[in-house]
């Protein structure tokens, strides 16, 4: 059996949940593929993984995979994940969100999760638009782009999700695209193995809602765009700001050792129990 077929049999809930809800050509399938390949490489058992998601196209990812899966409310996936991880720190908690999910309605939870530094993995599929509700602008919709709620062109500036995560204090931040699929595998694997809050921004595309309105073509053209604008972090260091204009850096943006919340909590418990014993 081909490697991919083995993975499909091992990890997908094929008996009940297919066909999936995503449009043909959607990047979510590539993210899902990268995720199960990465999990398989880490060696964690299916029982050890808790996959948490929010609402939107990316949020539907949890239903297809045979882990402990938790499909939460819009924007709140990280808050549920925080509770899961604290109640049982042995579990590997991976959170999948969309751009609107993680940085609009869930923006506050996102920056505080980054600051708090629990050992969680956050994968944010960024397709620049609210796909499931029909193509309204999101916090990552570029200035001037058209959306169902920006028919004359968008008048706001966009967030850069990975940079936001770096600034908010995440221990590890990486960015990939669904075109660079094998890099995405590696990034997700590293993010899962990182001790601390790790963020993977996966640049994806919504040809149905965003591509169509902005005349960007179908999935092939949009993925070609990903290939053209992406530049490896290592190479970007040798480039001038002018050369980097309108380019997207991919790779590991930040990897730093910060106190992990659950370790600090363990110390706090020991201190409080010692104080009790001293009385």
């Amino acid at each position, binding site marked *: 059996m081909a490697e991919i077929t083995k993975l499909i049999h091992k990890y997908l*809930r094929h008996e*009940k*949940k297919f066909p999936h809800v995503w449009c043909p050509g959607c990047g979510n399938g590539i993210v899902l593929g990268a995720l199960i390949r990465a999990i398989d490489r880490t060696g964690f058992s*299916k*029982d*050890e993984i*808790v996959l*948490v998601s929010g609402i939107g196209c990316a949020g539907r990812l*949890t*239903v297809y995979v*045979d*882990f*402990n*899966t*938790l*499909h*939460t*409310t819009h924007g*709140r996936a*990280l*808050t*549920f*994940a*925080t*509770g*899961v*991880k*604290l*109640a*049982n720190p*042995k*579990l590997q908690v991976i959170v999948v969100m969309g751009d609107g999910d993680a940085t609009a309605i869930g923006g*506050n*939870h996102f920056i*505080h999760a980054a600051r708090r530094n629990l050992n969680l993995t956050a994968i944010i599929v960024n397709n620049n638009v609210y796909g499931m509700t029909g193509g309204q602008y999101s916090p990552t919709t570029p200035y001037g782009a058209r959306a169902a709620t920006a028919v004359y062109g968008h008048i706001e500036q966009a967030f850069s999700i990975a940079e936001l995560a770096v600034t908010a204090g995440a221990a590890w931040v990486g960015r990939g695209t669904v075109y660079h699929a094998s890099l995405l595998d590696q990034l997700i694997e590293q993010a899962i193995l990182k001790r601390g809050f790790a963020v993977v921004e996966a640049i994806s595309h919504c040809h149905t809602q965003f591509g169509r309105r902005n005349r960007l073509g179908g999935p092939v053209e949009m993925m070609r765009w990903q290939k053209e604008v992406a530049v490896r972090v290592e190479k970007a260091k040798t480039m001038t700001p002018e050369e980097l204009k309108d380019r997207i850096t991919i790779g590991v943006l930040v990897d730093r050792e910060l106190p992990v919340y659950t370790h600090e*909590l363990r110390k*706090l*418990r020991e*201190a*409080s*129990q010692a*104080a*009790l014993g001293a*009385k």
Partner: protein
Amino acid sequence: MTANLTDPTNQGRPLLLQGNEAMVEGALYAGCRFFAGYPITPATEISEVMSWRLPAVGGTFIQMEDEIASMGAVIGASLAGGKAMTATSGPGFSLMQENLGFACIAEVPCVIVNVMRGGPSTGLPTHVSQGDVQQARWGTHGDHPIIVLAAATTRECFDLTVKAFNLSEKYRTPVILLADEVVGHTREKIVLPPAGTIEVVERIRPTMPPEWYIPYEDNLRGVPPMGIFGDGYRYHVTGLTHDVRGFPTERPDEIVPFMDRLFRKINQHFADIQMVVEDLTEDAEVLVLAYGSVARSAKRAVREARARGVKAGLLQLITLWPFPRGLLEPHLRRVKAVLVPELNRGQISREVKRVNQGMTRIDTLNRIDGRLITPAEILDRLVRM
């Protein structure tokens, strides 16, 4: 302020505790090991005491970025195996409604304390109110059953917190414990019961082989056994309406049985869930129906009325929702009149009237100025009824 609580030799000795502090002790007694919250008057003491009491018993306290996050974390912790709780007041309770609905539909046990203050909006942060009674029932969107209890004394704060956890675990439902500013902040003497003297219920876990586990399958109780993340029973938890396997469904033949079961698991256990305290009601001609701090005023007023020859009695509601109509109806058939004093504009009295159907006269006494209804105000009405 309660440093003496850490001394285990204090068990069985009288302590002076706030209602808020007693709720913490009740939660710990019930086995709560996770608390997520956000500071808010007049519930903050619960967070403060939890922050040092929980780590000492190996539990987790976390102050989240808001009440939405607190409720999310509580649900996550419960799914991963811990008895979990949060505490707030009106504005925070409003923010919790979204995820409270998730706990209803996904059937996640958890306890939410709301120490009520004057509203709407920021309202009267340091003053008493009972303005969230209907919000506790219908605050989250969609049809759903819910259990809501109301405490009046420090002792009840302890007992009903234990009870709230028990009901929550037994029926896989969020349970809301309503206190109010007076109940939360009043300090009273309490002797904490030694471990093992009050019943503590644990959730029913699956025992069949994992491949046989159908997470939302109906049974006689209407409450499916609950798999815990990491215990081998992998399943899908979602806020979408789901089939018996937990997967999203839009099929009417799956939606209806699911919603029916959600209600049935509460409805068929009314006798276990609905609680009242009867005080001088056997021969009462006028009945005061009250709950929370107002029940304390009513208790005094009823005695003063009896001293003046008025046969008054008090029916104190412990369970507000599901509304204990079966325990009220015999009184409605018998008494001349019922007085419902409340610190709102009639949130329970409208329920009493709905149940009454013209059987007797229902009078209301409402106060919304942030002050507790006094015994004199109730007495004044009782002697004129």
